[in-house]
């Protein structure tokens, strides 16, 4: 984890309400792994006391990308980033996706939760690991991928305007899989993740979920990004076995260890 001043390569709308920015940040990009995130200072005039965390949606040796929705002041400032502008980042942060060996990976991303899922998708592709990618959105205009039965890419929309209509979980009926030999990797809105978590527990499918919590630091010092865990195993960090920290113990947790998403 380091602080790096990156440089914006592009910053554009890729679908309705969805933006993508590419940043030259060789130190972070050469270290990060799919599932990790960065913590962003939206502008040098930023007066709020917290940075804004964003998952890494793509990485190569030199560059990283983020995919974001404009929801408030911070993301609005990020939306204003100009090409060539220097941007202040801390990263890579958090744990990363793992444990697909011996499983058939089912990747499920909804809303801006697609970012860390997409990065995993690229990684599995690069390793020629067969998997399924399901992306959920409210409507066609919010999708920026094409569905492709061949490549195992499925889309869902609330209104059925493209892909499978309804909840993202409906897409699980579109292809055959063995619950006991599959593992879900998911990120998205809390309600969506909670539905997937319950389904996974129900059907005994392995499932890892990337959570969002309000983060003051992103690297373990404020202890604010608490995630309540079910198992209270007494360990050295007894105080973190009940309340884990999303930024260093997570953001990725297993469905079984969470009380709720």
């Amino acid at each position, binding site marked *: 984890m380091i602080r790096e001043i990156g440089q914006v390569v592009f910053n554009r709308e890729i679908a309705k309400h969805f933006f993508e920015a590419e940043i030259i940040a060789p130190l972070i990009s050469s270290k990060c792994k799919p599932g990790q995130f960065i913590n962003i200072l939206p502008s040098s005039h930023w007066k709020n006391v917290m940075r804004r965390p964003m998952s890494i949606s793509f990485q190569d040796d030199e560059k990283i990308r983020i995919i974001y929705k404009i929801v408030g002041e911070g993301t609005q400032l990020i939306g204003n980033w100009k090409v060539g502008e220097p941007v202040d980042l801390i990263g890579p942060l958090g744990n990363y996706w793992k444990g697909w060996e011996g499983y058939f990976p089912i990747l499920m991303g909804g809303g801006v939760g697609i970012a860390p899922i997409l990065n995993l998708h690229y990684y599995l592709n690069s390793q020629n690991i067969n998997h399924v990618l399901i992306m959920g959105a409210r409507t066609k205009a919010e999708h920026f991928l094409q569905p492709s039965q061949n490549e195992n890419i499925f889309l869902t929309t609330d209104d059925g305007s493209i892909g499978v209509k309804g909840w993202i979980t409906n897409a699980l009926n579109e292809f055959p899989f063995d619950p006991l030999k599959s593992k879900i990797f998911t990120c998205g809105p809390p309600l969506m993740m909670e539905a997937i978590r319950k389904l996974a527990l129900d059907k005994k499918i392995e499932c890892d979920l990337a959570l969002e919590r309000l983060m003051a630091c992103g690297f373990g010092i404020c202890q604010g990004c608490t995630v309540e865990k079910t198992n209270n195993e007494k360990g050295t960090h*007894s105080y973190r076995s009940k309340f884990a920290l999303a930024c260093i113990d997570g953001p990725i947790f297993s469905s079984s260890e969470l009380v709720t998403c």
Partner: protein
Amino acid sequence: MLNVKIKDIKFNNPLLTASGTFGYGDEVKSLTDLSKLGGIVTKSVTLEPREGNPPPRIYETTSGMLNSIGLANVGINTYCEQKLPFLNSLDTKIIINIAGSSLDEYVKVLEKLEESNGVHVGYEINISCPNVKKGGMQFGVDCSMTEQLTKRLREKTDKLLIMKLSPNVTSIQEIAKASENGGADAVSAINTLVGAGIDINTRKPVLNTTFGGLSGPAIKPIAIANILKISKVVSIPIIGIGGISNYKDVIEFILAGATMIQLGTINFSQPHRNEEILIQLKNWLNKNNISQIMDLKGAVECYS
């Protein structure tokens, strides 16, 4: 030019990190050079491990934040085993912050640390945490409790003894005097102000515990006022805390009467800020022909 002294302890510069905002240094060491700091004040440690308060524990406010971490920490035993060796290895001065629910608890924790092999230079006693039900702030609002606690701890240690004061009182001067009377080497101020917020959509408080502590630039004017007040009534050094985010703030606190300062909330978004501040402080002192930063201590020139 930047070095300062409290009792017999020399610090390279007046910048400390505030308890609970810098961990134990390990998490931050890849983001800033710890050896450049005047010192680190560690997260409050208590006798027993504490899991802290349930989520949500933090919330962003206008130019500030609320927190109700609730003194989550590993407890003094694990602390001595696992944290002290790392702290000992750091090339900076360590001040260990202690919290407790009773006089005895504070004393026991301090005793354990005195018996340990820690090379820390002193203790900061948190009598002002607004986020735990028992203890914490109940001491910090009561003069005789404060004096008694200070005395008992003083008997047990020759290391620096710093009492950390709460601004949530009618007269912080009295608590400061009680600390001085009890034998403290210094007081630090301020801890967070009691604050709260409500999510209008869910109707739930923004913190699980409803009330929390407000910190950040929003509270700086309140902190400065408290430093000015305390400096009128005590002669022991004051360590200024509250909303400091740049070198100008540091100078402002020193002019108000502080000998050292602590960086708190700023560490979350700018963990390297201390390094920038040191450079800017030196430049500013040079530009203004001031050879020692301590020449500025308490040098405010009030109108009347």
